Every structure is written in C-alpha cells, then in structure tokens.
C-alpha cells in the first residue's frame, strides 16, 4: 500500500488558546500518547507536535480517509479528558503534497505567529526525537523530518526571514550593539526589579555584560533579584551616585514620576568624560526625562520606540517570507517526487509483468492453434514482433511516469495509484 503523509492539527489561527490548550500534550505523556496513536490500524508512523501555538499530528498512512478519522478521534479523546466542545471547526487537515508543504512551512517558521521566530525548529526536533525514541518513526517520516530541518536551515540562510529582532529585549540589545562595540567592559544599571528588566538583564549578560547593578524602592527585592542574576544591589536613594558608572541604564520601576532628569545626565556625562550612555525606559510609565535624548553621546529609547522598531522588522520579515515560500514549494516538490518514486519502481515492474503475461498467454494460444504450422524461424519472428509491440506500447507511459516532474505541486503518487487501479496491479 502506498504511504501518504497526513497532518491533522490546530494552530494559533485556527483555534483560540483555550481550545489549543485543551488538546495540548504535556511533555511527560507524549511518549505514551505516541504509542497510543500508533495502535490505530490506519497509522503506520506518527509524530506529535505540541507547542503553545499549535498541536499537530503528523503521520504516514496507507488509507488517508481512515487515518484522518482516527487522528480526529485521537485528538477528541485527548480533549474529552478536559472539556467537551467539538473540535471540528478548529481543525485543519492536509494530505500528500500539501501536508509536506505544510510541515516545511512550519519548520521554516512561515506558519508561526511571529514569522521567522527560531524556536519552532528546536521544538520540532525535540518532538521528532521523542517519536523516534517511542519507535513511531519509520523510513517516510524519518526522511520527511530531516528534510524539513534542512529546508528550515536553507530558508534561514537564503532569506532575511530571521533578521531584525522583533522582541523588545532583543531589539534593545541590537541597539546597544550599534552604540557599544563590546559589553564585557560595560556596566548595566537596572532600576526596578520588574520581570521585563530581569529578562533584559539576562539577555545582556548572555551578550557578555559582567557588571550589573540593581536598585529598587524595596531594597529586599533588589537584593533578591541581584542574587538571582549575580548583580550588585544598590539602595534606591543611592542610585544617582552610582549612575555615572553605568553605560546602560534600564528603567522599569513603574514609578509615576521622572527618576532621572536631563540635567542630571548632563552633569554625569562631564564626570564620565562624555563616554556614551544608553537609556532604555522600558516600563509603562516614563521614568527618564525625554530630553535626555537631546544630549550628545546619549541615546534614550522608550518602550514605544522599541515597539515601533519591532513593527518595522516584522514588515521586513513578511516581505522576506515570500522568498521563503518559493523555497518551501520547491523542496516540497522534490520530496513528493521522492515519495512517489518509492512506489514507482515496483509499479513499473508489475506493469511490465502484467503485459508480458498477456502476450505469452495469447502467443501460446495462437501457436498451439491457428499458427501451429509456422516454421521455427517464423515462430521466433512472431515472438520478437509481439515483444517489440508490448515494449513500444509501454514506452510512453513508463517514461512519462519516470520523468514525473510536475510543474505545480502535483502528486506523482496519483499516477502510480491510477496505474494500479487501471491494470489491477494491487500487491498480491
């Protein structure tokens, strides 16, 4: 039986978060679920992908219809344990060439909520590994997934889909890199012990920042955050004194008033001999005087500035996505052709055998009957002639099948299936 790729799933576009959560697979149960999935007779191979933004079952199956039914049932069962509301409206299904293309798009992060985000590839690898360990991956999915990983890499290197940061903290780091050449000799001051400041501090540390000062109105919170991120806690009333040591100042105190005035910064700059400073006002309320940006060698970005950069970068990615789509299409065609060729060779052999059988039967009948008076030479000639006829008749269809390079995403397995049906070539 010809194996087809089938995908049933729901994602951030097709289903709201509650529905996605209701079918999500918890990591620890994935293995169990995979084995359960494979117990369905229609499913030959299977991989489960479950992230915040999507839940998908990718399978290889002989009978596409019953595979769809079984996977739907499988997902419904998963959901039934939580609450009952039909999934039908939220689920999409893909088969054959479209399924291959869908998986490649997912891997290349074209189907992600934030186009080009790099995490999805890692998640895909992780779930593929889990399926491999559970023993639910065979030759077809093995090849499909490895192909999807390299498609993702190709898209990333040939298009700008991953370029231009889109998260607030990575944009801030990006900007800091345009001001500063290196971070290991820079000092960061974090004003406020909020979550986003914490995140940004860690991000900067991963880029080499070693010196961190943390201050907060409640000194204990500053101490506990400083401990977590290996920084130095500073009392809130003392922070202006330490400000001149800071190259990057991150404000997320959420204070209702301006904490650092332009005049203060001007004074500090003189003490620092005009060494550049980068202020990032990341809280909901402005804590840094907007006039700070007018000073030479000082740059001030607030949360809205960072968000508008994110917006621009997202638009940039969307235009790069078009290039990526054509790479995905091309790769999907190649894969589908490979999949088709798996069944091609046996089908061609079976077709030849079938014709040869008919020829031999008819020749035997004739040579035993109306043509029984022919000489040995003439018999040989008849054999040759009929063999040539059969070969000539088969030549066209077979070479067409072998070539099978469809212009669009056409499925060559269709031809194989048609031949099997027309000439009754089903595996005996």
């Amino acid at each position, binding site marked *: 039986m010809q194996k087809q790729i089938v995908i049933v799933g729901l994602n951030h576009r097709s289903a709201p978060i509650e529905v996605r959560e209701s079918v999500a697979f918890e990591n620890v149960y994935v293995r169990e679920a995979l084995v359960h999935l494979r117990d369905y007779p229609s499913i030959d191979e299977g991989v489960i992908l479950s992230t915040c933004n999507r839940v998908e079952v990718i399978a290889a199956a002989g009978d596409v219809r019953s595979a769809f039914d079984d996977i739907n049932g499988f997902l419904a069962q998963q959901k039934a344990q939580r609450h009952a509301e039909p999934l039908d409206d939220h689920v999409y299904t893909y088969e054959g060439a479209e399924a291959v293309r869908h998986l490649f798009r997912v891997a290349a992060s074209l189907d992600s909520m934030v186009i080009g985000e790099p995490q999805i590839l890692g998640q895909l690898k992780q779930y593929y590994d889990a399926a491999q360990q559970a023993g639910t991956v065979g030759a077809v999915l093995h090849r499909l997934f490895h192909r999807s990983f390299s498609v993702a890499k190709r898209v990333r290197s040939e298009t*700008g889909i991953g*370029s231009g940061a889109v998260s607030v903290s990575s944009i801030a780091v990006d*900007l800091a*890199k*345009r*001001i*500063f*050449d*290196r971070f290991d000799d820079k000092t960061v001051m974090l004003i406020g012990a909020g979550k986003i400041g914490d995140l940004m501090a860690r991000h900067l540390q991963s880029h080499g920042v070693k010196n961190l000062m943390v201050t907060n109105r409640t000194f204990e919170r500053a101490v506990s955050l400083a401990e977590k991120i290996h920084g130095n806690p500073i009392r809130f009333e003392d922070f202006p004194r330490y400000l001149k040591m800071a190259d990057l100042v991150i404000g997320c105190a959420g204070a209702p008033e301006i904490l650092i005035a332009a005049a203060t910064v001007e004074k500090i700059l*003189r003490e*620092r*001999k*005009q*060494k*550049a400073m980068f202020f990032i006002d990341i809280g909901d309320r402005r804590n840094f005087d907007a006039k700070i*940006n007018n000073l*030479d*060698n000082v*740059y001030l*970005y607030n949360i809205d*500035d960072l968000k*508008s*950069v994110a917006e*621009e970068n997202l638009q*940039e990615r969307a235009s790069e996505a078009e290039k990526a789509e054509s790479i995905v299409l091309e790769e999907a065609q190649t894969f589908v052709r490979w999949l088709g060729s798996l069944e091609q060779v046996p089908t061609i052999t079976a077709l030849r055998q079938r014709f040869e059988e008919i020829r031999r039967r008819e020749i035997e009948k004739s040579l035993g009957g109306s043509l029984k008076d022919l000489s040995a030479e003439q018999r040989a000639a008849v054999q040759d002639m009929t063999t040539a006829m059969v070969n000539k008749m088969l030549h066209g269809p077979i070479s067409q099948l072998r070539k099978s390079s469809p212009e669009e995403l056409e499925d060559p397995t269709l031809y194989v299936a048609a031949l099997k049906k027309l000439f009754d070539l089903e595996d005996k």
Partner: protein
Amino acid sequence: MDALLVKLTAVVYLGVAVSYFFHLFRGASASRLPTALLLGGFLIHSIALTSLFLREGFATVAVMGDALLFNSWLMVGIYLLIQLKYPLAVLGAIVAPLAFLMTFAAFAVGGGAGEIPPGLQTFWLPLHVTLAFLGNAMFALAFGVSVIYLLQERHLKHKKLTILMKRFPSLESLDGLNYRLLMWGFPLMTLGILTGSLWAGIHWGDYWSWDPRQISSGLAWLLYGALLHGRITAGLRGKKAALLTMVGFCVVLGYFLWGDSIFPSRHGGRFE
C-alpha cells in the same frame, strides 16, 4: 602611457565605489569582491605612480595632479592595511569614491605649478612630502570614519533603523578608529611641518615664511591638536569630535586643491 594608467585607475576606483554601495544597500553578503577590485585598482595605481616617478623623478609631486595621484595612493594603501585588521566595508564606501575623485582630478587638473629647481631636489623633498601626505591620508580616512559615525549617530538619535545601519560598525568602534587615525595623522603632520620648516631654513634661511600652505596646515594642525587635547583631557568625543575631524580635513583638502592656484607660493611653484 601614464595618463592611460591613471584613467584606468580612476575607472577601477569608480567601479569599486559602485560595488561597495551595491554591497551596502543591496546586502550582498561578502565584501570580498569590492576589496579585491580595490586591490586591483591599487596595483594599477602603483604601476602608474612608479612609472611616473621613474620618468619625472619624485620632484614631480610639485605638480598638482601628480601630488593628488601620490596622496590618493597613500590613502588607499593605508585603507587596505586597516582592512586587514578591521573589515570595514562602509569605510571602503567612503574611501573608494574619494580615491576616484582624487585620481580623476589627477588627470583632469593635470599639471599646473612649475618645476622644482634642481637645487631643491635633496632628500628633504621626499621626506617632507611623504610625511605630509601620509598625514593627509590618515586625515582623509578619519574624515570617512567621521562621516559614517555621523550617519550612524543620526539614525540612532532619530530612531530610524535601516538595514544599512546594520552594516555600520558600532559608534564605539568608529569613534575609537577615528581617535587612532588622528593619533597617527597628527604626529605625521607635525613631522611634515617640521621637516618642511627645517628644509626652508636650510635652503632659504627662514623657517617660516607665512606661505598660505603653511598657514592652512598650521590652522589644521592647531585644530587637530586641540581636538586631541580635548579628547584626552575633557572627553571631546563622539559627534563633536567627528564634526571637528571633518572640518580639519576640509581645511587640508580645500587648500590642497585650490590654495596654490589662488596664492602662488613656495608650495605653488614660486621657489625663488
């Protein structure tokens, strides 16, 4: 023969400039091509210069066009050396058009000033000219770095982030490079002025004759000196430093190009 080579050099530099811009704006991934082209242009340039010096002697640098040819050769050479350590394609995008303009001017402006009398053709000539021109080349590069600094700074201040910006080095490294170039350029210029002055003292008996070239390089020297002093003592850096660097170079370049023809002097053909 020389004229043809000089034209060829100018054409190659123009090509390099175009390919640098293409590299910057279109995001061609490797900057090897423009650099290789520039190296090719530099080789042709070297041949042109060698054959010129062989035929006319080094004293031909008194001719404006040939001076430009020599000075731009030094500039491209230093850029290629910097390129080994700092792969700054953006700086190339400034140096290449500048090199094109200078070599183009070399045959467009052509001759001008008279011959240097044989009495003046001592070792002082190449010493003074080479030192002064090396200083000029450093300032030309510092000028380029400052232009990039100002562009980058403007983008960051106005929060307009473009793809182009990503190819710019950080402000810190641009400012650092600018400083290093001035640290090289300033002593070279100082030595250039000193050797010129000593030479004049030996030959004419007066060390300083208020020749317009002396005045302009004296001005530029004071400016660069103040800039370096300000930088070391008061942290005169960043935008202001970039602007002053550019002003300094304009003084040097402006006089270099037009001064001699307006005020004939010992630098401009009147050697008696």
